[in-house]
């Protein structure tokens, strides 16, 4: 895989779609092309977040920690960007990620990613949009859970 192919791949990532070609090229050149084997951990929960990733090929599982051990709570596919939230908030990784099958990914260093946001309002706006979507989704889930909880507590209270 050479730089030009990577540039094409990056362009397919929605967040980077509107980036001018030179910027995209720089992003590709300064990123690290990594390969992961089936079952290999990309990172673990609690690790320091020093980079964001773009999947070029393959699938990655999101592992959420539960009392009964890690559980697969989501799946990421080709052209998806991940790990950028922890970079933005400068916080440790919230979940672990594991390769399902062979995976090729581009690793974008935190410096480069933040620089990209600072210099390209389009990209920054897109990040905001995505974050908002995630926030809304989380809020919905929260509301659902709250209602569910209320329903159960009201159902069980007469027995007390």
């Amino acid at each position, binding site marked *: 895989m050479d*730089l030009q192919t990577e540039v094409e791949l990056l362009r397919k990532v929605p967040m980077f779609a509107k980036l001018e070609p030179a910027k995209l*090229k720089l992003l590709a*050149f300064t990123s690290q092309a990594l390969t992961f084997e089936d079952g290999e951990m990309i990172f673990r929960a609690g690790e320091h977040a020093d980079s964001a990733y773009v999947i070029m090929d393959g699938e990655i599982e999101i592992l959420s920690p539960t009392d009964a051990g890690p559980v697969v709570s989501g799946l990421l596919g080709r052209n998806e960007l991940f790990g950028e939230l922890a970079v933005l908030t400068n916080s440790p990784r919230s979940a672990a990620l594991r390769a399902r099958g062979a995976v090729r990914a581009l690793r974008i260093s935190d*410096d480069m990613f933040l*620089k990209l946001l600072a210099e390209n309002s389009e990209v920054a706006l897109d990040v905001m949009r995505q974050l908002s979507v995630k926030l809304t989704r989380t809020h919905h889930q929260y509301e659902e859970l709250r209602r569910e909880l209320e329903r159960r507590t009201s159902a069980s209270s007469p027995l007390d």
Partner: protein
Amino acid sequence: MEPTILKFIVRHSAREQVALLVMTVAAFPFLYLSLDLPKTIVNEAIGGSEFPRELLGHSLDQIPYLLVLSTVFLALVLVNGAFKYVINVYRGVVGERMLRRLRYQLYENVLRFPLPHFRKLSQGEIVSMVTGETEPLGGYIGDAVALPAFQGGTLLTILVFMFVQDPVLGAAAVALYPIQAYLIPKLQRRINALKKERVVHVRKLSERIGETVNGIHEVHAHDTARFELADYAERIGEIYRIRYQMYVLKFFVKFLNNFIAQITPFFFYAIGGYLVITGDLSFGALVAVLAAYKDLSSPWKELLDFYQTKEDARVKYELLYESFQPPGLLDPSLRRGDLTEVPRLSGVLRAVKLDVREDADAGSGHETSMSFRVEMPARVALVGGSGSGRKRLATIIGAVRRPHSGSLLVSGVDLARAPQMLTGARIAYVGQDPKLRAGTLRDNLFYVLKHRPITPVSYDSATAGVVAARLRDARLAGNSEDDTGADWIDYADIGVDGRESLEHRALEALTIADMADDAFALGLQAMLDPAAHPSLVERALQARAELRHRLDEPELAGLVEPFDPSVYNTNMSVAENLVFGTPRDDALRLDDPTASPYVLRVLDDTGLTDDFVEMGRSVAQLMVELFADIEPGSELVEQFSFISGDDLPQYKSLLARIPAAGATALGESDRRMLMALAFRITPARHRLGLIDAAMQDRLLAARELFARGFGDDAARPAVDFFDAERFNPAVSLQDNVLFGRLVYGKPRSAVRVGAAVREVVEKLGMREAVIAAGLDFSVGVGGSRLSPSQRQKVGIARAVLKRPDIMVVDEATAVLDGGSQERVLENLFREMQGRTLIWLVQHASLARRFERVIVLEDGHVVEEGEPQALDRPDTVFGQLVAAH
């Protein structure tokens, strides 16, 4: 040390000074003759009559007579010169020898200083005193007797000559001497006072520089550089002020002397002229007197200068004496020691009313008194809070410090009075921060075994002569005559039977100190000389083959791209692929091979030159495109670009110059600049798509040509090639075993491959040999290339190496991690079985594992006994244990 410089000179160089004096006196008759002869020549040979004259039985006419006298004059000049030369050389020898003696004595005293003295005298001060302040003394000592004798004698000879010519003229020449003799010492006293002041300030300055260097982290961390500079400026300003005053006085003295010397001829012209006119003095005599006076001013000036030098030396010596002769200097007999056999320590360890304070702080703080008794061998824990005196006690048992009063007796011998020969060999004290010295790890381990030379080396006849001369010089200067080249290790005494078994024992000691893994890692990083480690190198090649198999196993597959002369390695740069080895010198540099004409010829011959220019152009264009907008100095450019931020504009203008015919039509230097970029491409990392399969094949052909050469005398740069059958001395042992490159883009590959290398090396039984190679690791100044915990481990390992009867561990495992501390404790328990181990424990709970506990509080023993018996809620020990 002698209290004054005069006594020092008399005591140690009386014979040499007398010899100098004799030579000097012997020179005088010739000097006098050379002064007298001109008169005879002028008066008798030139102005005389009555020829022929009788000379030594020959009768001579005027001209031959003149020639003979002139020739005699010439001979006298030569004789005088020869005397001067011999005397000067000998004087230099005496001075340097005495300087060497003085420096040796100062250093010897430093080694005997009572430890509290080092609180008053910093390292910086000592260095400046031993090296700087002594320097002018050597010159003075050589001159001490001979110069005043010679110059005084010269002066006297000239004066006698003048008085003989005419008493009045002689008196005129010395008329102003009394004024000088009165004024100059007065001025000199003021200069001396300033000199003392200056020395004190310079010492303080050295101290401050030393402190700043040691505390440079603080300066950076707290931004105190400006304050430091201001403080420094003030200090050197003070020295400037003192020096300025000294100069004013010194040159006033010079001015006075010059002035007086200049006005004396006035008397000659006036009085001498008068005497010649009246006929009381011959014209020749006046000429001779005038010539003599010209000669007179030189010795007089020398004498006055000498006086100043003498005063300077006297003051300096006095100040040195004050600093280097503190009260409580260790008795030299304790340090020398002349036991024929060093006894083992056994029996009872007993403290009797031990006051653990030192002499220096006896005035402050309150009296302490410790008494206890331990039957050896024993495993004893010292327990107590800070201020309990436990640290002091540990250093007293370790024979590092001496108590203020009371005594610590080991089988009846008071340790404070025992020769260091005994304590140094039988007691091993390990402190928290063992001081290492620049040298290898091995040097530092064996350092503690070097008490005295044991086996002299046999030198070949040529070297033996040099060594003998060196020792003779040392003897003449009162220096140590021990040969550092001899073997200083008493193998039998530490229970080994020679160098080889000591090496083996060193590995044991490292294992006991939990340092073996560290040494193993250092050994893997070491570069080995195949000639010095033939068997290790051979096994490294086996390990290489073994690792190749391991790397084919599924969990390691694809992590390493091995070196193969017939395969292009995509994880190496183009330059590395072409050379396929490690250049031995700077004639070929992998970061820019275009500087090597040989490389350029290889490219030309394989038709690659134009391709390199083209590839370089592509890279340059990409770099300019990517990085031209990035602000200069950005980390991004330095980290990723092929072209440094500084060179980017240059390449930009180069690209603009490319003619229509293409980059290959550029000038030679432009083409080379582009080619240099092509050499840096590492395909797996840069993913530029420039090195395709066809290009790889052509580069392999170039690699082959590079190694084969041209068959003519074109010198190939010296390279250690990557050869599967050969060990490459230019890369580390680990890289030799690996024999390949880690593949880019494999997370954590370095860790996984590193573990595999270690496994293979251990499996092949190379561990010991690798550790031995690790012992050659150079630890840096003060052991700075080792971590603090590694330094502690070295301290413990070398204490073990001594096989001491008593080992004192003074919180010496403090910075080790928990697991390591535990291993060291267990290992030392086992190692010191049947011998005495005294451990100053940080946490009282640890004391439960010892046979005896001594609990200290406020400089007194409050409890003593078996830990099981003492571990109750109502004891101090019980409470200390509970506190953790």
